[in-house]
């Protein structure tokens, strides 16, 4: 697959303050890219540049091959943008809101009626067709705003904190909606500070801090990039001492813990492993050769929070 979003050396300065510092990023078509980082990390600045709303000081960004600085109109046709506060018109009815923006994108009146029904069904607001926007809940307004971004059928969706301020149920609904949009072939670029949200639905992740991209890739790649240790759990029959003795002499093994110490059963041993898959496989083979009676040998997958904490240093721009 080819990159639909290409960012090369993107920099944004406000006087002496560098909001974005030589950002390099490529996002493939159909990807769901989670852009995470603390407030002031440069996420919104990046999104505003990608949406042509802000001019970069240096560097270039392209969407679908079009430069955001030189061909803003072409870029605008390709993208749908949802800002962090969604910008709905409380004085309109739900259908009027979509009708107005569809008209702004030159969609003929005859097409609009059917399209509005489809969009409302997609975001599960079909029953709210004639309601006033101001009567909708925050989650519903968020989904309505997302429906608006889809009105001109864009290839790329740029969503700034789409789950921000939503209750757990609305958050789950939003996540399901993003999955559905991914299945429709949309490329989704969204920012979030809710790490579990990102881990659940993203194909790729970028971590920003103080205007710089500190980690980028899928979670597995990032863990390798950041050399986050892997937590391995072994369950066995018999005395665990021979196992611990063997592990202690291995140079990639660290922090060996007995099951009793961590309120698990005594037949369990846990340890941190800093090697790759090949080395882990060799270790398992060695344990079996040494007649350790293994029942299970598994890796406890570290969550995104480990990666995030490892990648960032708490620097605030």
């Amino acid at each position: 697959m080819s990159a639909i979003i290409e960012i090369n050396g993107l920099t944004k300065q406000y006087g002496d303050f560098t909001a974005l510092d030589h950002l390099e990023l490529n996002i493939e078509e159909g990807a769901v890219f989670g852009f995470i980082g603390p407030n002031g990390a440069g996420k919104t600045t990046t999104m505003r540049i990608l949406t042509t709303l802000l001019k970069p000081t240096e560097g270039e960004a392209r969407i679908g091959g079009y430069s955001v600085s030189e061909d803003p109109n072409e870029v605008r046709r390709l993208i749908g943008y949802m800002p962090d506060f969604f910008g709905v018109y409380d004085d309109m009815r739900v259908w009027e809101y979509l009708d107005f923006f569809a008209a702004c994108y030159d969609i003929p009146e005859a097409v609009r009626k059917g399209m509005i029904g489809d969009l409302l069904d997609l975001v599960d607001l079909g029953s709210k067709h004639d309601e006033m926007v101001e009567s909708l809940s925050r989650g519903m307004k968020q989904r309505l705003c997302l429906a608006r971004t889809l009105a001109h059928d864009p290839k790329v969706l740029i969503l700034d904190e789409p789950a921000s301020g939503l209750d757990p149920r609305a958050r789950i609904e939003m996540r399901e909606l993003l999955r559905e949009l991914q299945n429709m072939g949309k490329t989704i670029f969204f920012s979030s500070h809710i790490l579990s949200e990102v881990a659940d639905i993203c194909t790729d992740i970028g971590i920003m801090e103080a205007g710089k991209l500190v980690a980028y890739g899928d979670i597995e790649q990032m863990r390798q990039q950041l050399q986050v240790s892997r937590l391995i759990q072994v369950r066995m029959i018999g005395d665990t001492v021979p196992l611990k003795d063997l592990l202690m002499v291995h140079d990639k093994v660290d922090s060996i813990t007995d099951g009793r110490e961590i309120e698990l059963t005594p037949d369990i041993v846990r340890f941190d492993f800093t090697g790759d898959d090949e080395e882990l496989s060799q270790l398992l083979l060695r344990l079996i050769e040494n007649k350790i009676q293994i029942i299970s040998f598994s890796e406890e997958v570290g969550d995104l929070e480990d990666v995030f904490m490892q990648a960032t240093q708490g620097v605030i721009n």
Partner: protein
Amino acid sequence: MWNFLRKVRSNPIYYREQGRWGEPNAYFATLMRYLPLILIVVLGLSVFCGSYQLTQFLGIGEAGGILFLLLCLPNIVIQVLTWIGIILAPALTAPSVVEEMDRGSWDILRLTPMPTMEIIVSKFLGSLSRLRIWWALLVVSVIYAIVVGLGTSALGAAASFFTSSGTDFQQTDGWQTVGVAVLTTTSTVMRPWLEIGFAGLVGLTLSLWTNSTRAALIGSYATIFVYRTIINTIVSAITIGLMFQFEYYAFAVGTGMFSLNLVYVISGAVLFALLRRRALAIDRGDLLHD
């Protein structure tokens, strides 16, 4: 230019400002609830000023005052309509952009395929078209222009007569009389339109430069009040100066009216140029609205 205006006339934002999709302007809706009160105050002031001052000035009695009031009726109606326009136009245009910024929908509008200038002009014309005074203003302006035109011609003719009788009035020929009549008439017709348009333009400009609707509204009314007072004083002074200089009343009045209109045209052009510059900067992504 014509194509641009045609595009604006078919722009959804133009129709949104007119109220096709929802009620875009809560301030205007509130102000409209007080319209009868505004109408009574403005009408009262216009009648009081028109009748009282002129009866005093001309030294005519009450019956003469009423007759004069009837003759001046088109002028009073124009004054009322102009004041209504001046009061309501900023209420329509000042919130138009700043409200979008407050609500977070300005960026969404900017991402539609329309250039910022087209959005701004659509908002301006769309919102001003909600003023239901334009047709009435056109009809009364034409009637008033005829009255003024005839009056000026008569004054011009009188001036010629007095000159030939040996008074100090300057010599005027027929063409000069016609010229002054045309000048005064066109200036009279144009003035309410220019004043209301200018008031709307001030509102729109501040809407793009301020970050709160209240600031845009207060700023607009303050600017219009100060500007009107200063400009009217200067132009009145020029008019009186001309009257003494040329001793030809109609010429002085015509020139005064024309000058006043010219000031509004130039001021409007300057504001429009500023708006255009701002719109281009927004299109280039040079401005950050957060």
